[in-house]
C-alpha cells in the first residue's frame, strides 16, 4: 500500500517560496489503478518524482508497505527506484544511443530481479508482447512515437515493479496509440498486482479508471497548494 501523508515539496529562492505540490493524504492499495489529474502546474509530475524517490519532500512522509521512502538515503532511494518503480514519461523516454533491446537491458542492469542469463530472453519476450519483436535492434530515432512509447512501457515493467508511474504517457500519441499504450500498462499492472498511477488530463484516458485523484492548484500564485481527492 502506498501512503502519501501531509507531503509538501517547496522550492526556495531569495525572494519567495514556491510550493510545487501539497498532498494531505493519498492512499493507494496494492493492485489499484489510479488516474492523477489536475491542471498544469498542479504538481502531478512532482508527486510522481516524490513517490519514485527522485525528489524528497520538504515535509511529510511517503510510505510503501513498511518502507518510508521519504526517510531513505539517496543510495537506498536509487535501489528502491530500480527495484520497485517502473516509470513511463510523456516523450523522449528511451536512451537515444541504445537500441530498444539495450534500453531494456540497461534497466535490468541496476537491479538483480531477473537472473543475468535470462535477461535478454525476458526483454525479448516483453518486446514481443508490445508488438516490437521485429524492432529489437532499432534505435529510438528509427521508431515511430507509438513504437517508442510501447518500448518505454516494456522497459517500465521489465523489473516487475510494485509501482508503475506514468507521466502523461499518451500526451504525444494519437488516440489509438494512446489507448493501446494505456491498455498495455493496465494489463501489466493487473498481471503483477502492481499499483498503476497515471497522470493525465485526457478525459478519455481518465474514463478508463475507476479511481481518479485530483490535484488542485492553489488560488495564490506564489504559494501553490494542491489536495488529492478520491472522486470515485
Amino acid at each position: 500500500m502506498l501512503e502519501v501523508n501531509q507531503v509538501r515539496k517547496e522550492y526556495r529562492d531569495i525572494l519567495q517560496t514556491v510550493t510545487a505540490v501539497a498532498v494531505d493524504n493519498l492512499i493507494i492499495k496494492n493492485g489499484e489503478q489510479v488516474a492523477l489529474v489536475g491542471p498544469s502546474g498542479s504538481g502531478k509530475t512532482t508527486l510522481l518524482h516524490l513517490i519514485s524517490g527522485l525528489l524528497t519532500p520538504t515535509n511529510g512522509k511517503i510510505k510503501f508497505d513498511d518502507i518510508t521512502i521519504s526517510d531513505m538515503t539517496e543510495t537506498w532511494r536509487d535501489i528502491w527506484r530500480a527495484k520497485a518503480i517502473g516509470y513511463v514519461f510523456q516523450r523522449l523516454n528511451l536512451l537515444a544511443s541504445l537500441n530498444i533491446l539495450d534500453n531494456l537491458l540497461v534497466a535490468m542492469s541496476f537491479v538483480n530481479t531477473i537472473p543475468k542469463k535470462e535477461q535478454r530472453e525476458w526483454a525479448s519476450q516483453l518486446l514481443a508482447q508490445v508488438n516490437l519483436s521485429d524492432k529489437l535492434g532499432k534505435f529510438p530515432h528509427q521508431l515511430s512515437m507509438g513504437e517508442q512509447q510501447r518500448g518505454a512501457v516494456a522497459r517500465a515493467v521489465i523489473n516487475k515493479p510494485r509501482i508503475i508511474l506514468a507521466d502523461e504517457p499518451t500526451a504525444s500519441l494519437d488516440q489509438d496509440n494512446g489507448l493501446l499504450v494505456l491498455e498495455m500498462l493496465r494489463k501489466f499492472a493487473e498481471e503483477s498486482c502492481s499499483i498503476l498511477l497515471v497522470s493525465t488530463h485526457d478525459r478519455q484516458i481518465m474514463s478508463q479508471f475507476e479511481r481518479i485523484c485530483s490535484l488542485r492548484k492553489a488560488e495564490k500564485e506564489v504559494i501553490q497548494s494542491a489536495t488529492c481527492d478520491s472522486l470515485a
Partner: protein
Amino acid sequence: MRLAIAWRNLLAKPVQSGLTVLIVAATIAMLTLVTLLSTGTHNGLVRATEPFDLIVGAKGSPNQLVLNTVFLQDAPIGNVSHEIYEELAANPLVASAIPLAFGDNYKGYTIVGSGSDIFQHQPKVGQGEWLQLTAGRPFTLPFEAVVGAKTAQKLGLKLGDEFKSAHGFIPGGHVHDNAYHVVGILQAVNGPYDQAILVPIESIWLAHEKHEHEAEAEVTDDSHEHEHDVTAIMVKPKGYSEAMRLYQQFQGNPRAQIVFPSQVIVQLFAILGQGEYMLKTVAYIIIVMGLMIMVLSVYWSALSRVHDRAILRALGASARDIFTVILAESAFLTILGVTVGILTGHGIYSLLVKAMESKTAIVLTAALTLDEVYIIIGGTLFGMLAGLIPAMLTYRKEVAQYL
C-alpha cells in the same frame, strides 16, 4: 553495462567524439614526436661516436673534425703528416691507432681509406669487432674495397663488382683511373659507416699521387710533401688515465689536435637541447589547450545528455553510476586519442628517420622509449582526470527537472 552506455554515447555523437579524439591524438603525437626525435638523435649520435675514443686530426674546429671523421659529413679540415700516426702507433699510452684518409667518393658515398687493422678494432673489450663482414673478406691489396651495408644496398654493389672513385665529396668530380674491386660487404653497424666504402689507405695515396701528377702539368705545386698524409687517426688509449695523459700531450702541439668525440657531442646536445626545449614547450602548451578542449568537450557532451542521464536516474542508476559513465566516456576518448597519437607520432617519426638517415647518416632509434611509456600513462591519466571535472560538476545536478 555502464561501459557499454559510455561507448554507445560516444558513437551516438561521432563528430563531437571524433574531434575530441583528434585533439588528444594531435597533442600526444606532437609530444611523442618530440620525445622520439630527442631520444633517437641522442642515441644515434652517441652510438655513432662509440667506436671513436679519441680522434687526432689537423688543427681547426673540433666539431668539423668529428663531423667529418665520425659522421662522414662536412669537408676535412686538412691532413696531418704520417709521422704523427707513426708516433701515435708507437706511443705506449695507445692500444691502437688507425689512420683514416678521406677525399674521394663513389656516387656520393664516402670512400674511407684505412689500414686493414680497422677490421680488428673493438670499441669495447669483449663486445666484438666494430666492423664485421656479412660476405667476402677484408681488403688486403690496394684497390680492393669493403662496402658498408647501406652503400651495398643502395648502390646494388656485390662481391666482384668494380667501380671507379671520383675526387671530392660530392658526385661529379674527377674520376680516378684505377677501378676498385669489391671483396667484402659489411654488416650493418647502425651508424654513418653503413654508408661508407672502406679501402686500403694506400689506394687513396696512389689515386691522388696520379691525380696530383696530372695536376702538376698544369700548375706548379709541391704536392709530393702531402702524398702520405692522413686525414684523421682513430686512437684507442689503453685506459682512461692514458687517454687523459695523451690528451695532455697533445695540448700545445702545433701540428695536430686531439679530441674526445663524446665531449664534442655533449656540446652538440646543448645546442640541440635549446631547440628541443622550444619544441617541448610548444608541445606542453598544446597539451594544456588540448586537455582544456577535451574537458569542455566532455562537459558539453555530459550537459547535452542530461535528459538521458535523467532517464537513467529514473531507471535506478545512482549518481555514482552516472559519474562512472561520464568518466568512462572521457577514458575512452583519451585512450583512443593516446593510441592514435602514439601511432601517428611513430608514423611521422619513421618518415623523418628515413629522411634524416639519407641526409645525415645518423641512424635514429625507433624503439618504444621510457619517456613514451610516461606519455602513454600520463596522457591517459591526465585525460581521465580531465574527465573528472565534468563528472564532478554534474554529479549532484538535480535531474528530475529534465524528465
